[in-house]
């Protein structure tokens, strides 16, 4: 089974922030970590990721800086989480935990 990036809708920012809590990272690495964590079942587009980056930067959740030129002259853009980003992530994680408990109760199906 495969899911499009739609399943992450509304959570893309939180997912990215969770990755950035572990340290600064760049676009492709973040994309790859999401894909790897999805065990190949999540197909997220780079445009979705990029759009989320821009939105988060605008909202002050992350900051960016350019890395050095690599082979061929390409430069990576690095992202790092801000204090506002950490707070946002904590709040969203808490909401997610509460929501999953409720949804488990509603959808669960174990007792049925």
């Amino acid at each position, binding site marked *: 089974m495969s899911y499009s990036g739609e399943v992450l809708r509304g959570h893309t920012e939180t997912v990215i922030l969770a990755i950035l809590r572990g340290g600064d990272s*760049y*676009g*492709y*690495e973040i*994309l*790859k970590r999401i894909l790897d964590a999805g065990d190949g079942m999540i197909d997220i*587009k*780079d*445009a*979705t990721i*990029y*759009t989320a980056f*821009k*939105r988060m930067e*605008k909202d002050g959740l992350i900051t960016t800086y350019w890395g050095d030129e*690599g*082979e*061929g*002259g*390409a*430069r*990576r*853009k690095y992202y790092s989480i801000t204090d506002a980003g950490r707070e946002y992530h904590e709040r969203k994680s808490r909401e997610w935990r509460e929501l999953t408990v409720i949804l488990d109760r509603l959808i669960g199906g174990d007792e049925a």
Partner: protein
Amino acid sequence: MKEELKKYAWRKFRRYPKTKEITELREELWSMMCDKFDDCVAEGADEKDAARQAKELMNDCTAAVRDVEVNSSMGALRRMLVGLLTFSAAFMLALTCVYLFLSLVTLKSFDKTWMLIVAGSFVYVVYVAVKLYNYARHFGFSGLTRVAFGGVFLSLVPLLYVLPSLAANVLFDTNIWGKSWLIVPLLAAIWLTADMMLFAHGTKAFWWEFAALGFLVTTVIFLAFSVFTGAWNVSWLVYVLYLVIVAFAIYFAELRKRRA
């Protein structure tokens, strides 16, 4: 191979204005392509396959560019408008110079040379419509693209209908207004057909196709009837009949849908 990827990325972005945000997006997507390429090679893919996979990252770059454009206070639109303003000034200046030269030096008369200004203005209107359409299409604004596409056809009306009729009248003293208006339904028919083929998808597609096809059939009936009978002054009523049929069809379909 990295150079090839760079050329590919640059080619994908060549139609977009070089605003700061769009240039940054291009740089970042290119670096992502390079990372993807290296990753694929490290996993054992050959360079050709790795490049193909890397290029796939650019498949939906229009969505990213559109998002950048919307979130950067329409920087590209503003740049396009400034460019258009500059072009307008240069175009009008050049047109005025040609007009004055023709009137004062070549023909030594202002009698009919004003036609040049009219023609130039009509060409200019088409140019602006095409520019707007290109902007909407490149940035993937689907609604605006469709409207601008119609705008291009609308802008052709003065150029293809008014100008030739006016020129025939002013320059050759021939009145063709009575027949030249046929270019308008013809343009409308071409526009409807093209619009239907390019944009009409989804729930409203059926009604759009129905209306467009009906319009084409009406035009054929109108022309055939008018040419064979010569009753041009009456045959236009067939368009009224067409509109009535379309209106009734839509009304009853809506009524049925509501009852269901």
